């Protein structure tokens, strides 16, 4: 290819991608920012009242609302607990996978991947049924017929959290398993010969050697668990009793589409987006450190 051709052609190949991504990310983000500085509610949508610029008014409302802070707080705590539990379960099972024989390994990874590939929607409904007060198997087995798992805020978070972990740990498990497999057998054998226990060799060998991979898994889990929507929305019927189980995503959705407070909902969306952006920057830095060729 000639030098001139080389400088001109990139756009021919890259343009379709840009043409899809720019309007799907650029414009909505622009719109989100724009709406967030306007008083934009049902009255303005229907044309009953003029749209007025209120600067950071929506943000002031939001930051002055104790409800926002409590939802932000429980979003962070919920996500943090989910990340830790997902990693613990995923790592433990990754180790089990490396030790298991062919058939148990195959069955376990297929079962896990089935949980991962299924729609979050259907996973949520089946867990809801398992914990149903009257019909649920859990109450039958425990002999506590009629106990409502979706009444107390933290019990509800527990059940929803278990559903989320069930859906998200397989990815962590399989990524860590792939990582452990990539550690030379000789290294693991040497540790065993030196008398290292399973526990010791996990913390002293596997974890340090897989640090880059673990960083990426952690960050991906943070992103994943921070933007949980479906499980909360479906299992708690849109955020639980009086919205007690709301997380930022559900709160933004309910504010915008439930209460028709589009301006305020956008402001929450902006806050969410900024938080995700910061986490993403850490992700890119972590990828860079592992020597990913960009």
């Amino acid at each position, binding site marked *: 290819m000639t030098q001139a051709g080389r*400088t001109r*052609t*990139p756009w021919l*190949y*890259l343009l*379709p*991608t840009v043409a*899809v*991504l720019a309007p*799907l*990310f650029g414009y*909505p983000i622009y719109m989100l920012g724009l*709406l967030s500085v306007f008083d934009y509610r049902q009255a303005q949508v229907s044309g009953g009242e003029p749209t007025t610029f209120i600067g950071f008014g929506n943000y002031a409302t939001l930051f002055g609302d104790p409800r926002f802070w409590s939802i932000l707080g429980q979003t962070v705590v919920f996500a943090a607990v989910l990340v830790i539990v997902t990693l613990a379960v995923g790592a433990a099972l990754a180790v*089990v996978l490396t*030790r*298991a024989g062919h058939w148990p*390994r195959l*069955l*376990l990874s297929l*079962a*896990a991947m*089935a*949980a991962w*590939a*299924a*729609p*979050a*929607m*259907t*996973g949520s*409904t*089946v*867990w*809801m*049924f398992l914990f149903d007060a009257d*019909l649920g198997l859990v109450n039958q087995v425990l002999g506590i017929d009629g106990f409502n798992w979706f009444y107390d805020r933290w019990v509800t978070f527990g059940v929803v959290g278990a559903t989320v972990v069930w859906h998200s740990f397989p990815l962590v498990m399989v990524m860590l398993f*792939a*990582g452990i497999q990539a550690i030379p057998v000789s290294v693991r054998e040497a540790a065993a010969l030196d*008398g290292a226990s399973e526990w010791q060799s996990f913390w002293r060998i596997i974890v340090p050697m897989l640090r*880059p*991979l673990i960083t*990426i898994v952690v960050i991906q889990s943070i992103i994943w668990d921070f*933007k949980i*929507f479906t499980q909360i*929305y*479906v299992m708690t019927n849109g955020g639980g009793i009086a919205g007690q189980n709301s997380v930022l*995503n559900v709160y*933004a959705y309910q504010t*915008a*589409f439930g209460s028709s407070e589009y301006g305020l*909902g*956008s402001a929450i*969306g902006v806050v969410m*987006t900024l938080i*995700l952006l910061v*986490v993403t920057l850490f992700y*890119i830095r972590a990828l860079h450190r592992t*020597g*990913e*060729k960009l």
Partner: protein
Amino acid sequence: MAQHVKQVGSRSLPKIKTVIIAAAAYVIAFVFLFPYLVMVLTALRPQESLRNATYLPETFEWSNLTGFWTSGLADNLLVTLKVAGGSTILVLLVALPAAYYTARHNFRFRTAFLILVLITQMFQPTAMIVGIYREFYQLGLVDTIWSLILVNGGFNLAFAVWILNAYFSSIPRELEEAAFMDGTGRLGALFRVTLPLAMPGVITALIFTFIAAWNEFVVALTLTTSPENQPLTVALNSFIGQYQVDWQNLFAGSVIATIPVIILFALIERKVVSGLTAGSIK
């Protein structure tokens, strides 16, 4: 402690350990599959036996599943198929040239381009759903499957570009050059040599996009309003009332919404994993 045990029972221990680990693996696998088992069994239970249910249904009511096709849900399944299929085609058409070019050429904004694409993967539509709704409202595309195809395509493009880029990069340029020298032409070399070699990557990207679009919930919940335009995930949600849940129909639909993706995923499991871990293991 561990050392001690190892010395004493070094002959019998590994065997017991293997059995315990295998048993644990089977039990855990069962625990993870259990919700699906419940889903299928409930879907097949006669309506009246839901209360006072025995662990296994005494009779299987296959008409619950066949009833799916006569209920409106068949239309929703069709919407899901169109959306998932449409987004997959869109992603392949758009991602293939970009991935190929960035794998084969070095140019000024190459790294910036790939990072920007990667950043879009981190964003999920939920946070910016108000903006997305507003955009499609202005375009007059709210409550159409086109809006769902575009959003699902856009939000899965990044993974496809990255995994295809990795595949194209791993195919030696010399193979293509050789075919070119043999007189196949640039495009001939691309279609007869490079693309067939990259097929595993293409299939992975294809199935991954299809599954993600199939499972999507939030965007469809927001952008579709009339029941006949809703994909299966959203339509199923309408079986969950404030006080009453129509479990049988919900699970009959859930079974049909779940099985195809699990089968598809089983086909690409390994490749997705290697794609996701690309470069992150030293």
